[in-house]
């Protein structure tokens, strides 16, 4: 019977092309708007590493000023100092841990036709790659010795390997960063977690860095962070070492803690660490160390803004208005077929059978409007991308969103069809037959 109803629905839609176009158009505009805002919201609120988001923890230590918190009401800094990063790395209490920051560097090659380029490198430890499930195309991460000895090795992202080596296996080849030669040890596959959860200080929805180098090069190369850098007091002296020893926070620190016991132990370790540091005259504020897993970290940093949520709400209200218009159009369409309704009732169609027939018809309207709406939504996302000049990480339409939009169109149109269908099937058939 479903296929029969589907056929009747298609015939009915063909019968009144203008009315059909109006109904499909109303659904499409509502769905297009919803799709655009939902797609942005979906990308913003998505879990970038679902397989282990509950095991990766951003570390916060409250080394801030005794006179005021880092953020009201009593939030600790979202990054750590160089000294604390090094101490936590040396302690090695987690299964994996890494400290990292981004730095702008000048890239050169031995190829005379390649001009020097300004790139963004992430200085980090070898644990960064297995912790965040970073996929490799060639080679792999550097080893512990390279970290220990601050070796000049580099991991290229997919795009830069294309640019510099035409996408070939470049492991063993050399590039020049800030006038120093670096040996390529690995090349990444295309990789773009969105949001870029491991560093929310720099363009939360931007691309990952172009290259990755060992963290311990920071001292020898005097690498400065090109990300967020916050201090509550001046360094002891103006030297680079003075900056490294300061209470300025500019390094993201993550620990991989698969079990609850490990999380509790690590929290205790942090508390003990801060107590030890207090004895050295640091950490003047009360104990306020925090561990946030990926999901909590995204929420804590308000990656999904209230504005986005409000926009989604508004778009749903707009969809409701479109659907209210559609209800009127559907009712008009159904009533125009009063003769058919009366005839079907007269020859034995039950109210339920006719109700199903009309719901299938509204479902077809919904699916058609949904498909058109997805196209409008896609166009809307392109518009948003150009309007705010954003990365396409949160202005793209994935298959999940296509499915959600179609489902939304189907459900909302069937909801819109309930009243008209109910209204026409409950009128006694004799009334419709009199109309003939």
């Amino acid at each position: 019977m479903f296929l029969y109803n589907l056929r009747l629905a298609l015939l009915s839609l063909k019968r009144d092309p203008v009315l059909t176009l109006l109904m499909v158009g109303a659904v499409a505009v509502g769905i297009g708007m919803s799709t655009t805002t939902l797609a942005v919201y979906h990308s913003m609120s998505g879990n970038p590493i679902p397989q282990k988001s509950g095991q990766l923890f951003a570390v916060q230590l409250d080394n801030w000023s005794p006179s005021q918190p880092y953020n009201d009401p009593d939030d600790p800094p979202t990054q750590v100092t160089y000294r604390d990063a090094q101490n936590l790395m040396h302690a090695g209490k987690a299964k994996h841990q890494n400290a990292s920051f981004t730095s702008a560097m000048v890239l050169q090659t031995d190829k005379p036709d390649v001009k020097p380029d300004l790139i963004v490198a992430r200085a980090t430890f070898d644990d960064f790659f297995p912790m965040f499930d970073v996929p490799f195309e060639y080679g792999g991460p550097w080893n512990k010795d390279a970290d220990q000895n601050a070796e000049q090795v580099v991991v290229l992202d997919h795009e830069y390997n294309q640019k510099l080596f035409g996408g070939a296996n470049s492991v063993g080849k050399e590039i020049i960063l800030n006038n120093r030669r670096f040996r390529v040890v690995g090349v990444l596959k295309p990789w773009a977690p969105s949001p870029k959860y491991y560093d929310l200080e720099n363009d939360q929805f931007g691309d990952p860095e172009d290259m990755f180098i060992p963290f311990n090069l920071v001292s020898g190369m005097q690498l400065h962070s090109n990300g967020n850098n916050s201090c509550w007091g001046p360094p002891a002296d103006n030297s680079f070492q003075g900056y490294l020893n300061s209470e300025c926070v500019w390094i993201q620190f993550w620990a991989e803690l698969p079990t609850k016991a490990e999380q509790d132990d690590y929290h205790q370790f942090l508390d003990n660490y801060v107590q030890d540091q207090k004895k050295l005259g640091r950490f003047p504020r009360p104990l306020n160390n925090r561990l946030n897993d990926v999901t909590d970290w995204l929420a804590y940093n308000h990656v999904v803004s209230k504005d986005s949520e409000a926009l989604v709400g508004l778009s749903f209200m707009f969809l409701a208005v479109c659907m209210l218009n559609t209800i009127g159009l559907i009712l008009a369409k159904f009533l125009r077929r009063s003769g058919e309704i009366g005839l079907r009732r007269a020859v034995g169609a039950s109210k339920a059978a006719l109700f199903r027939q009309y719901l299938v018809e509204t479902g077809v309207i919904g699916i058609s409007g949904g498909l058109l709406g997805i196209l409008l939504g896609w166009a809307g996302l392109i518009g948003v991308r150009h309007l705010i000049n954003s990365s396409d990480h949160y202005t793209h339409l994935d298959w999940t969103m296509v499915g959600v939009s179609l489902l939304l169109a189907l459900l909302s149109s069937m909801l819109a069809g309930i009243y008209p269908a109910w209204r026409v099937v409950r009128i006694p058939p004799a009334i419709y037959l009199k109309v003939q």
Partner: protein
Amino acid sequence: MNDSNGSKNMLSMQNISKIYRTDVVQTHALREFSLEVKEGEFVAVMGPSGSGKTTFLNIAGLLESFDTGIYMLDGEDVSHLSDDGRSRIRNERIGFIFQSFNLIPDLNVFDNVDVPLRYRGLKSADRAKRIQDALETVGLASRMKHLPSQLSGGQQQRVAIARALAGEPRILFADEPTGNLDSLMARQVLDMLESINASGTTIVMVTHDPELARRAHRSVHVLDGQVMDLKAVPDTGGKRDNGKAQA
């Protein structure tokens, strides 16, 4: 419910009343309306406009409810049936023929005849055979793929008759079945109704036309919502004996 002759009543209405109400006026469409139609009868219901014959037909065909009285159809009390129950009986035991044919314009002849069968849960092959047989009966088997708009008025009414026949109804209600046809077409349709009746299907036909009524076994006159008179047709050229119905 048999009469003294032993023939079964197909339709029996006792003291049926129907009042249409608005805020300001009440209209008695049927008053204490009583009628019996025997199984296999061909009865013409006549009366002027507004006399209540269409209301009678709607109530008899379970298209409309009534206020008081008892209605037995094919031996079953249908006075207080639910809407689903009425739909089921309309689908399985009743056939309708309307003045304006009531064909669905988007559906071809085959699909129009298929409409009532769709609601009976029959298998596709069974439906196809019934449709084929019904269309052969009305002489339109070769027009299955035609749309109603491609047929003449007479042909459209024959499709409507095929639609009514395909469900193998026990009783056929016809509302001015020749009202929209020229005399030649009207004669063909009437011949067809007689033939259907001859095969055992009870027919109740509402008409204004005395010529048409003369071809029924008997005619019933309705005035002001009541049966006024039952007139037996003396000789119908080999038709069965007239049944006896009472007002």
